[in-house]
């Protein structure tokens, strides 16, 4: 009997390990992710190499003014006779790293607050929950606008504003993940083995929270870029003469006929954001169960797994909701 069982289980093992090998590369093999990686990679390169590949100094005003693309320069010149292409390339150096900083800071802050609220629960959760509610009540741009205005318009204050308005999202996701993980059997099991709450947080809970949170963060890089360029567009972020995409678009509004001044920075923003969204969305396919936490009870599905009753799916990347208990709450 037991030989039989172990033979059966070995067969299952073979199947399972084949599946597990398929898991991660699948995300990178998807054409969407590939497109995202190529575009994002190109912009990273542009950002790094801008000082060497840009034909002109982005701030130098020596060229003829408002020449259309192709005449003096590939993408034309602006009202002050600056080279649009050089400004575009240097713009990548401004926005992309700052968006990264914004996302990382908001993620760390939000994850910590969410984890504390979710793990301790009770009145701590209640207070932190109200706090997150409060910051979520403001529409992002309006709160960021007020903050940027209050602290004075600058790119760094825009980043700060961005952090203030986006951390609650991470806090919410983390909180609900931690709350469901906290009552998971494996967490209880290690507590029964004498794990301290800190240790259980560090080895049982956070590693299982990080996947979904990172997916969220990767999707948020795009949103952060939109926020930063949007604030700069309103004059609350980058200040002239900085070569920044949002403020370039806003400057272009004054010169209606020079269509090229507005079109290209916009396309730059569009492509970068799109690249990050492609990557994040493909990542989500791999680490999916996130979305169920993000939406609390809404849940999501990895794919059309219409037949599962009889299949016995052995892969559970992140534990699902705790099993229904005997007693209704």
């Amino acid at each position, binding site marked *: 009997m037991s030989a039989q*069982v172990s033979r059966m289980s070995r067969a299952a*093992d073979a199947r399972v390990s084949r599946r597990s090998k398929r898991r991660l590369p699948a995300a990178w093999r998807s054409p969407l992710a590939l497109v995202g990686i190529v575009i994002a990679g190109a912009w990273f390169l542009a950002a790094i190499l801008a000082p060497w590949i840009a034909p002109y100094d982005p701030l130098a005003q020596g060229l003829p003014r408002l020449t259309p693309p192709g005449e003096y320069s590939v993408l034309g010149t602006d009202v002050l006779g600056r080279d649009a292409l050089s400004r575009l390339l240097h713009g990548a150096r401004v926005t992309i790293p700052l968006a990264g900083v914004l996302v990382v800071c908001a993620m760390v802050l939000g994850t910590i607050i969410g984890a504390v609220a979710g793990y*301790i629960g009770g009145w701590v959760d209640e207070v932190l929950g109200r706090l997150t509610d409060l910051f979520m009540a403001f529409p992002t741009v309006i709160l960021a606008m007020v903050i940027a205005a209050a602290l004075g318009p600058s790119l760094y204050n825009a980043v700060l504003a961005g952090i203030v308005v986006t951390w609650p999202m991470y806090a919410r996701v983390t909180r609900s993940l931690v709350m469901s993980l906290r009552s998971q*059997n494996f967490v209880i*099991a*290690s507590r*029964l083995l*004498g794990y301290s*709450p800190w240790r259980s947080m560090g080895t049982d809970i956070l590693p299982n929270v990080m996947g979904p949170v990172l997916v969220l963060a990767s999707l948020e890089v795009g949103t952060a870029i939109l926020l930063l360029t949007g604030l700069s567009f309103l004059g609350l972020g980058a200040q002239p003469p900085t070569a920044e995409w949002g403020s370039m678009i806003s400057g272009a509004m004054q010169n209606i006929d020079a269509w090229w001044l507005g079109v290209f920075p916009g396309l730059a923003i569009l492509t970068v954001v799109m690249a990050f969204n492609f990557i994040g969305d493909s990542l989500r396919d791999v680490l999916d169960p996130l979305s169920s936490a993000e939406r609390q009870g809404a849940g999501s599905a990895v794919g059309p797994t219409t037949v599962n009753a009889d299949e016995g799916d052995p892969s559970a990347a992140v534990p699902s909701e705790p099993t229904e208990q005997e*007693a209704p709450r």
Partner: protein
Amino acid sequence: MSELLRVKDLVVRYGTMTAVDGLSMSIEPGEVLALVGESGCGKSSTARAVVGMERPAAGDVHFRDLPVPPLGLRRREKRFTAIQMVFQDPNSSLNPRKRVGDQIADGVRAARERNIESEEPGHWLESVGLEASMASRYPHQFSGGQRQRLAIARALAAKPDLIVADEPISALDASSQASVAAMMRRLCLDAGAGMLFISHDLSVVRLMADRVMVMYQGSVVESGATSQVWSDPVHPYTRALLAAIPHPDGRGVLPAAPAAESPQEWSSHVPEALNRHAAPGR
């Protein structure tokens, strides 16, 4: 102090709903006590209260004459790591991002912290019918049944004095249920530990429990030696429960169905159904 576990007048409430209503029991070393009942009868809540996952609304739970503290924000005292639990759902019993060998090693460490020697993870894997070389794998590389074996190995590695098993075999395939149950009993008794075994399946309980307690709507309606309860049930609920089990004998006999859903007589109090002793001569 022969008692390992003593539960007295335990009450567990969720909001206004009373899940366990004044339950008392005790377990001795080397004894398997089964708690049997259908869904919602409070058997799992009892198990959760015993290990400290649930804070009792009233009554107390003593392990070796010390009250079991609730599993709160404080680290569990060493001596209470002698209480271990095996859960129903094997898929959530193991940390998906940690090698199974390391998870079993946590059990070994817990034993050593109590100054009790415990074998290496590889040994424990073999003792539950797996291979020592599987220690470096992750939980998702195992089937559901194997995961349950891993969870059992982890609990046993801590050299517990008391194992609380909450429906440990109901998520397994029918063909492995009986063998896993028998394995749990053997390993538990070999280690001289006591076990609280929660199940809805009387026919499995018959195979492994010394004593059984039948629960209905939060209270124990019948209890005593397993053989006695199995062969000669007294309480109407126990009788209905036993009669409803279909037997794979090929005779095409429909199991007896109760006249109504939860008839009144099931909640009746039958004093002679409690603490029944094994018939003399057995």
